[in-house]
């Protein structure tokens, strides 16, 4: 098949940037990485990109196609080439470019290292000569996080990191959850304390780009929510983000609806709220600051309160409350609605491109 590619070339020494177009012949099963190899071997040896395993496990070939981070070795080009579209290939975002499609991963590794990505001792040792046996169910807590291959696709698109480069970011936080949720780790509380810092979990803006882009199904945003929930369960709730989250719980069990007007003082404290008085008055003039009295109370809110107390006593909060839904949500990720055929799943609006299927040529 003929594949067209537009590649953003970049030279960090001179700062020169240029969009170059290539037209190559590639086998029908070619991935984006295969196509880049053909460009480099046969057309332009100066093109720079990273690669190693070619099978979605080393995490080297993260880059952007049409603005979205992908693993080049996972991206089949058949459908795109057939449609006549010429995709734009560029380096990942949120990391400095070294040359062409190669980014400097140093800031990435610094954040990765900052969460101490290894097991730390401190757990109770089993009796002499016994193995430390951990159930599969217990390890399922970190199953998704353990799939991370450090490719950086999530970091590339993180909206919070774009706004604040200091944000610890989805990859490092998902990695942190991999150890916070591991029963063999002895430093859970110390880890959570650190993760509640200025650039930690509460700086996540919930844009869900990380979940969308991750080529391995790690769902970093969900990992961050697990860290938040586990922090709150352990009573680590001093951050404004935690206080903000807690106020929603209080609102739901007292009036049912969010008590919006009290949210600012409950999150930021009275002093900061008073400093914002002028801003608040501007909003109040437009009815954007509903008076807290009389409160807007949902009908039958007593049920929501009793539900809260009942559920609390069942002790499934912290990360366990999120993990319990993963089995069902994984069925969505794998397209098992129960009634759809495989073809229907791939033809859903917004679904990933259909993989190349050899005997399907007749349909094209």
């Amino acid at each position: 098949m003929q594949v067209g590619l537009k590649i953003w070339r970049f030279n960090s020494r001179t700062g020169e940037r240029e969009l170059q177009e290539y037209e190559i012949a590639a086998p029908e099963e070619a991935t984006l990485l295969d196509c880049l190899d053909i460009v480099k071997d046969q057309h332009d040896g100066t093109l720079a990109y990273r690669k190693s395993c070619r099978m979605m496990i080393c995490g080297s070939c993260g880059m952007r196609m049409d603005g979205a981070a992908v693993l080049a070795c996972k991206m089949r080009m058949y459908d795109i080439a057939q449609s006549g579209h010429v995709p734009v290939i560029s380096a990942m975002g949120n990391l400095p470019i070294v040359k062409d499609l190669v980014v400097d991963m140093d800031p990435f590794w610094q954040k990765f290292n900052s969460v101490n990505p290894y097991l730390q001792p401190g757990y109770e040792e089993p009796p002499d000569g016994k193995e430390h046996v951990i159930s599969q169910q217990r390890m399922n807590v970190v199953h998704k996080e353990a799939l991370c291959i450090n490719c950086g696709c999530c970091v590339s698109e993180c909206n919070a990191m774009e706004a604040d480069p200091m944000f610890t970011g989805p990859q490092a936080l998902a990695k942190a959850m991999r150890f916070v949720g591991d029963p063999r780790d002895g430093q859970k509380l110390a880890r959570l304390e650190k993760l509640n810092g200025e650039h930690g979990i509460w700086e996540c803006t919930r844009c869900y780009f990380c979940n969308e882009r991750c080529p391995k199904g790690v769902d970093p945003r969900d990992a961050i929510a697990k860290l938040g929930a586990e922090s709150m369960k352990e009573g680590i709730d001093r951050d404004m983000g935690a206080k903000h989250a807690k106020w929603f719980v209080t609102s739901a069990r007292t009036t049912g609806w969010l008590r919006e007007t009290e949210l600012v003082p409950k999150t930021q404290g009275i002093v900061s709220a008073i400093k914002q008085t002028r801003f608040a008055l501007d909003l109040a003039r437009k009815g954007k600051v509903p008076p807290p009295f009389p409160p807007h109370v949902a009908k039958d809110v007593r049920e929501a309160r009793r539900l809260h107390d009942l559920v609390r006593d069942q002790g499934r909060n912290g990360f366990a409350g999120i993990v319990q839904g993963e089995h069902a949500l994984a069925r969505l990720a794998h397209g098992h609605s129960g009634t759809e055929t495989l073809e229907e799943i791939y033809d859903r609006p917004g679904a990933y491109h259909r993989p190349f299927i050899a005997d399907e040529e007749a349909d094209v």
Partner: protein
Amino acid sequence: MRKVAYYKGCLASLSAKELDSATQALAPKVGLELIELESVTCCGAGDIHEAEPDYYLHLNARILSYAAAEGVDTLLTVCNVCTLNLRQANFMLLGDTELRARVNENLVAVGVPAYEQDVDVRHLLWEIAEGEGYELLKGAAHKGLKGLKIAPFYGCQILRPSKIQGFEDPDRPWSLERIIQACGGEPVDYPAKIKCCGFPIIQAREETALSELIQPIEQAYEAGADAIVTPCPLCHLSLDAWQSKLKKSTGRDFNMPILHLSQLVGVAAGLTESELKFKRHVVSVKPVLEKLEA
């Protein structure tokens, strides 16, 4: 007229009452009969999911149960965040019979009917971007938008994660553009239309949030938009109410009017100020209305 359960959520109940009012007035024109749910609470807005996730699941199951009790198959939402929270909880329950049984047992224990009959959670945007809703919308939008340039702002959680939302391609969405065109407006394109408005952290990390918020406003401005339209009241609050704070950090006065989806379609359908309540906006919508009357 198709009956759907209507979950308006916190903002449309309180600080964004204009969204509720415009939606209620618009619904019959696009073939929807709204059954307002009374015994429901906040969906948790992602915050309860992060604070007490098991409570989040139960609160949302309770909302789904009351929707199902109305004998309808659709729960209509008007907020990105409500849509994601409810759909996520719904899929957790639909995909795991054991979990659903436990949640139902708890619901019944506090006097809530068990969630038995499945409902689908759908945003108003999806109802009017295709199918019968879209056909009716085209007919209803008789007053039109006179070629106004409208910047669609999707926000995050109506697009991502797409395995839960799944209505359209999260990177190349088309629904708002299609509606803008059907209403006689001209959609303008800009990269930040699928990015974050900063709202979830606007109180805890205001500076970071404002660096996000400025992108759609600045880009829509540069693309020559007369207004931004959004399907989410949280994006609306962020873009409309916090817009003035950009002046301090950038020295620029943007004054970009922000419309709720129901208001944009409502204007084109000839709804009046008493229903659209533009006076509740922080950034004046007057320039837009004047262009329409000209």
